[in-house]
């Protein structure tokens, strides 16, 4: 909602473009089978299209709206999402605009009770978290997608029917310019919480709703405070039981507060009441200057997901597949990871490099990530929005004790996101070599970054396809050529990176590790090898590289016969 007198898209700081509705492109009589249709041009759909294009896969994006999203308002982009953006070549505008942060602070009745710093060291290229408005995320991704010949974005085009056969998906598209059928090998439903694809297929999200209701408001104000997450429990302003404050670019502040029990929802979101509450929160933050109200909405915490993210040739990615509470900032971030996870797999299948059943691992891995969020979500939702007298009193007690005592302070931990590890899947491929390591990123986890002695970052050298990291004393180590040849035969995009104990500057995929800091962080010695997937999750590691096993590990990843 916007203040009275302002149009639906009349923002204080962001110009919403208006895209023309796509003309009806399919002449009657001619049937083209596209490689992929993506429903939804939000951050998740655009990420998928760009990722697919990196592997030469064409896609058609259908978007019912004629501009960027105004309803969904994610603001926190996690390090793992920045890493994904880098992998697909779109990270720079995010680095230029977004506000990085590491610290969260919690207050109880205006007294600071707890502060946490998320892990951040010289080895990290990206901050643990960045704040940026969803409109910018969409704009930056759109700018890249729009320039790409392989991506056909059709604005103002609504999918109204959807069916599939053994060999294709057929959708019916309606727009102001007419209606037509569209055929594709695969369809990715990135159409959000109110997914049309889900409705047409009569699929239901399963899970639970929590009772707490939050108001979300964006306010423009010049406030001299660093970018950090502020959580105010039982604030003196009395606005709500919990208030969250985040800084965004352009002097925009996100203020979330929990409605109190019995508080009337319709009354609470009336503009005058929103203004009254915002004024009190700003006062508590010590801001006494001017401010403008940009936008507000209301929100309820849910943990809901589909039983399977794959239905034949149709895949659900992002909010269409799962709804998670805002507190862990996993909605957008898990959606971005879904998009990347599915895209590289789909591209490998379409390019004939991987077996079709690789696509089944998408749901297995990404639904696992959602269930992991659920495991923590009910705990954090009960703390952030205590549902009954018992939970309220217990929360009150631990927060009150936390003013002077350390022992209850960790209750205020927001349990924010960390990339999910795909460990279950690897159970099939015996990680015999895992026990040889005493340090470094284990099987299934997203690979940690590291800095070479010339200050370059290791993961900057990862390729679009599978990557190998070989620790070597000699650049002409014979095994490096053998690995490059064997893996390159299976994956033409395979890229081998050498980490050597030499000094100097990085060149030709050789990273200098003078002093051996990377090697020690990875638990590696000369001859050690890590195999990374296109999404940078570790697909295998060997203290002493064994060519045959490396080749088998890559075949396992691509679901190709292991000899």
């Amino acid at each position, binding site marked *: 909602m916007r203040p009275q007198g302002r149009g639906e898209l009349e923002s204080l700081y962001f110009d919403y473009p208006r895209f023309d509705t796509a003309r009806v492109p399919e002449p009657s009589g001619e049937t083209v089978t596209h490689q992929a249709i993506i429903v939804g041009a939000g951050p998740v759909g655009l990420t998928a299209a760009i990722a697919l294009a990196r592997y030469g896969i064409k896609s058609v994006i259908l978007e019912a709206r004629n501009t960027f999203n105004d309803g969904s308002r994610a603001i926190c982009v996690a390090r793992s999402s920045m890493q994904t953006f880098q992998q697909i070549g779109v990270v720079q505008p995010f680095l230029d605009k977004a506000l990085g942060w590491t610290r*969260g602070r919690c207050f109880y009745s205006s007294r600071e009770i*707890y502060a*946490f*710093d*998320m*892990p951040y060291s010289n080895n990290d290229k990206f901050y*643990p978290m960045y704040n940026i408005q969803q409109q910018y995320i969409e704009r930056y991704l759109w700018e890249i997608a729009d320039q790409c010949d392989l991506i056909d974005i059709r604005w103002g085009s609504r999918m109204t029917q959807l069916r599939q056969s053994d060999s294709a998906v057929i959708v019916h598209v309606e727009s102001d310019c007419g209606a037509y059928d569209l055929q594709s090998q695969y369809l990715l439903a990135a159409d959000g919480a109110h997914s049309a694809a889900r409705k047409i297929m009569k699929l239901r999200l399963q899970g639970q709703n929590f009772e707490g209701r939050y108001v979300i408001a964006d306010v423009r104000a010049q406030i001299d405070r660093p970018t950090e997450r502020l959580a105010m429990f039982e604030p003196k302003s009395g606005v709500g039981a919990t208030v969250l404050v985040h800084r965004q670019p352009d002097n925009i502040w996100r203020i979330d507060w929990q409605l109190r029990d019995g508080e009337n929802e319709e009354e609470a979101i009336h503009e005058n009441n929103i203004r009254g509450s915002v004024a009190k929160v700003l006062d508590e933050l010590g801001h006494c200057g001017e401010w403008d109200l940009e936008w507000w909405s209301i929100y309820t915490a849910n943990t809901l997901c589909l039983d399977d993210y794959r239905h034949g040739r149709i895949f659900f990615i992002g909010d269409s597949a799962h709804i998670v509470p805002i507190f862990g900032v996993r909605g957008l971030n898990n959606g971005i990871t879904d998009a990347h996870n599915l895209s590289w797999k789909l591209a490998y299948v379409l390019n004939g490099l991987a077996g079709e059943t690789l696509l089944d691992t998408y749901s297995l891995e990404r639904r696992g990530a959602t269930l992991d969020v659920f495991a923590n979500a009910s*705990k954090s939702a*009960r703390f952030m929005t*205590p549902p*009954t*007298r*018992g*939970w309220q*009193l*217990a*929360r009150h007690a*631990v927060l*009150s*004790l936390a*003013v*002077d*005592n*350390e*022992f*209850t*302070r*960790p*209750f205020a*931990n*927001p349990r*924010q996101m*960390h990339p999910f590890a795909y460990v279950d899947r690897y159970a099939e491929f015996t990680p015999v070599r895992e026990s040889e390591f005493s340090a470094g990123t284990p099987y299934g986890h997203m690979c940690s970054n590291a800095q070479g002695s010339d200050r370059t970052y290791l993961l900057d050298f990862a390729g679009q396809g599978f990557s190998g990291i070989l620790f070597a004393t000699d650049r002409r180590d014979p095994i490096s050529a053998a690995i490059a040849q064997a893996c390159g035969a299976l994956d033409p995009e395979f890229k081998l990176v050498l980490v050597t104990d030499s000094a100097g500057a990085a060149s030709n995929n050789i990273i200098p590790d003078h002093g051996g800091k990377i090697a020690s962080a990875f638990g590696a010695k000369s001859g050690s090898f890590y195999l990374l997937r296109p999404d940078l999750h570790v697909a295998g590691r060997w203290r002493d590289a064994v060519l045959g096993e490396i080749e088998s590990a890559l075949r396992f990843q691509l679901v190709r016969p292991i000899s």
Partner: protein
Amino acid sequence: MTRLSFGELERFYEGLALSIDKAGPENESLFLAKLAITLASRLESGGVAQECLKVALGEVCGKTGRAGEKENG
């Protein structure tokens, strides 16, 4: 004396919240007082019980040994 881990303390917190609801608004204070006396009776030292009274009243800080534990987000 070994202390509860944070995970165990959290489980107790959850049980406490549910038990307060179970006791109901009229019996809430009585339930909490009974709980405090039951816990105190299982302590090994009367001094600790006296100190806990002061911690809960906000008169002293509880020595907990949990300080220095770093939060990792």
